């Protein structure tokens, strides 16, 4: 009898333990697991959604909007208040009389897994290489040009992107760069910043234990590839292996691999050098600045001399969407000049929206870490989808982390 009681206690506690653990990962793993059963239902009527999307009339809404966006990427709620910008979610709800449900993710691959499983989001925000991957997999609905006339606001630089020629499936949302955020005085930045401050054992020795890299196979491997002088879209196994070895050798000097709070680690002194995205750093510097304290005097962001990654995030409609008209109306809303400017004034990423520039704060437009100088533009490289080779990057990165 006692044995049975213990067995029951074991089961109950194991269940409790598992429950507790999965709570922490609900944003990533748990939804995927529950949605597997939903997968078969949405695979067949892909053409149906495309037909519905084509039939929409300008300004039409066909029900509520399920928006799947990166964490904190659209101003809403307390963050909008903190940054003193319009709450764009509420604005859209009020203007069109529909309800918006916002869910957030922190990596393209996590988003793709959800869409692949058939979860019915109406608008997603994939980055460049992910757009071409999703187009290849027939996961995106073609936009109806009559529904998104504001596409004309997009600057020439982004009107015919290689990942989606003619922006048929996607509309540019924001763009930015990957670089190094650092505390002044911790590294030598007289002649610009080099990736050596992370990857060279001698140059980075002084900051051992206070360096962070992104936890992202394409980005982290990409910076190592750039330091080694290779393309960050290389499909040479030897080059990728070399980059993986470099990351492995760098590991002992790192504080952490982190993609979701590296900016706070930097400004709280847990790191002094961090690889990351420009908007995250600048947003953080702005957030912690007060009338007496100017964080920009203590911290900086630089695109390394060896070159780095540039990326565009876009809005697109997955084939599992249930409200394609509301989705297109929303995309058109977001492409508006003033709305586009609100986005940049909020998240400190550059806007692909040319018409928005007159509403963007001048100090943002003139900041080279947000709008890079022409000569910097030349050393930036966009990520491309590598098809089958993607797994090679994932495995090499796992191996590098050991």
């Amino acid at each position, binding site marked *: 009898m*006692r*044995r049975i009681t*213990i*067995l029951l*206690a*074991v089961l109950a*506690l*194991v269940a409790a*333990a*598992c429950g*507790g*653990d999965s*709570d*922490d*990962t609900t944003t*990533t*793993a748990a939804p*995927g*697991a529950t949605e*597997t*059963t939903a997968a078969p239902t949405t695979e067949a009527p892909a053409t149906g959604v495309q037909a519905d999307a084509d039939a929409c009339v300008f300004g039409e809404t066909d029900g509520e909007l399920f928006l799947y966006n990166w964490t904190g990427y659209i101003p809403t709620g307390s963050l909008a208040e903190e940054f003193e910008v319009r709450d764009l979610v509420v604005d859209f709800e009020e203007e069109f009389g529909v309800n918006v449900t916002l869910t957030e993710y922190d*990596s393209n*691959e*996590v988003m*793709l*897994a959800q869409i*692949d499983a058939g979860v019915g989001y109406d608008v997603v925000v994939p980055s460049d290489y992910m757009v071409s*991957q999703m187009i*290849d*997999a027939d996961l995106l609905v073609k936009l109806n040009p009559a529904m998104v006339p504001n596409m004309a606001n997009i600057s020439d630089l982004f009107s015919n992107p290689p990942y989606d020629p003619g922006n048929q499936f996607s509309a540019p949302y924001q763009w930015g760069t990957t670089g190094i955020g650092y505390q002044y005085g911790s590294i030598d930045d007289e002649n610009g910043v080099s990736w050596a401050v992370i990857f060279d054992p001698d140059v980075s020795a002084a900051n051992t*234990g206070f360096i*962070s890299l992104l*936890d*992202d*196979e394409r980005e982290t491997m990409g910076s190592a590839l750039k330091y080694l002088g290779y393309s960050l879209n290389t499909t040479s196994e030897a080059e990728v292996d070399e980059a993986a070895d470099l990351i492995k050798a760098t*590991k002992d000097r*790192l*504080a*952490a*691999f*982190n993609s979701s709070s590296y900016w706070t680690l930097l400004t*709280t*002194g*847990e790191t002094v050098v961090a690889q990351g995205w420009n908007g995250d750093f600048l947003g953080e510097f702005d957030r912690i600045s007060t009338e007496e304290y100017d964080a920009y005097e203590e911290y900086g962001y630089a695109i390394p001399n060896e070159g780095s990654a540039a990326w565009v995030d876009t809005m697109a409609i997955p084939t599992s969407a249930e409200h394609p008209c509301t989705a297109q109306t929303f995309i058109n809303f977001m492409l508006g000049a003033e709305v586009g400017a609100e986005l940049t004034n909020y998240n400190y990423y550059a806007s692909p929206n040319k018409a928005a520039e007159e509403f963007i704060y001048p100090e943002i437009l003139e900041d080279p870490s947000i709008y890079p100088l022409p000569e910097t533009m030349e050393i930036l490289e966009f990520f491309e989808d590598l*098809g*089958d080779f*993607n*797994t090679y990057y*994932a*495995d090499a990165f*796992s*191996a590098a*982390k*050991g």
Partner: protein
Amino acid sequence: MTTLKERKGAQQESSNPKLERSARRRESWRGFFHAAPAYVYLTVFFTLPLLIVFVFSFASRSRTGRPELEGWNLDSWARLGEPLVRTIVVRSFTMAIFNTLLCLLIAYPFAYWIATRARQSTRTLLLVAVLIPFWSNFLVRTYAWRMLLDSDGYITQIGEFTGLWGRMLFTAPAVFIGLVYGYLPFMVLPLYAALERMDWSLVEAGRDLFASGPKAFRKITLPLSKPGIIAGSILVFIPSLGAYVTPDILGGAKTTLLGNYIVTQFGSARNWPFGSALSGAILFVMLLATVAYFRTGGRTV
């Protein structure tokens, strides 16, 4: 006299095989109805998901990483023998075993101490204290540890003041502090249950027969608390093997552990079949270990 007769009659009745069988059948039906919600729950939320995981482990992966329920193969299971997987498995097991031992070393004296308190109310109070941390979310508590261990944290300040240690955040000790903290209650509770139910007069008898304190402990207390030790160890070992949040937040995600590796397969690597095979393999090993325990160790109690 009459009572004896009645008892005899009752005995006769219960030894009537026909009646007994029908009574037992009725009993088992009632038991089934009582357990029905549990059966349904376990089938829908436990067995079915596990079956799905098992089926996916034989599926194939499309070029874009979509799991495809066709082209059934054993590739994912074959990959379990790769050196990288072996390294990760060995590392995770080492960490889980070490954490279990640490928890046992800390929890045993503590559980012993609680169980030997004379007043019931004191014991209850101490047990509640063990459970209080569960009132708040595990993630929140792990972040709290991050603040204690970071450069400005109290623990770092104490270390710097005494000159014994520096910043602990993002080091192996930080991970173990987080793990021991998180799983200690799972060790304390079964140990307490075993020790509290123990017949202390056996220890007294041992001492009367001139056993020294340590010897009485080794020969009597320890064997009698064995079920608690084993149950506690299983409870701590299994979740530490899949620990994912603690190494990520307190260790800086610098080494790949089984938990992170599986999450990667379902996230960025987009290899659901391989992730399923990994999960399935761990589950299978754990199940074997638990069954082995209940068939051997469990029986001696």
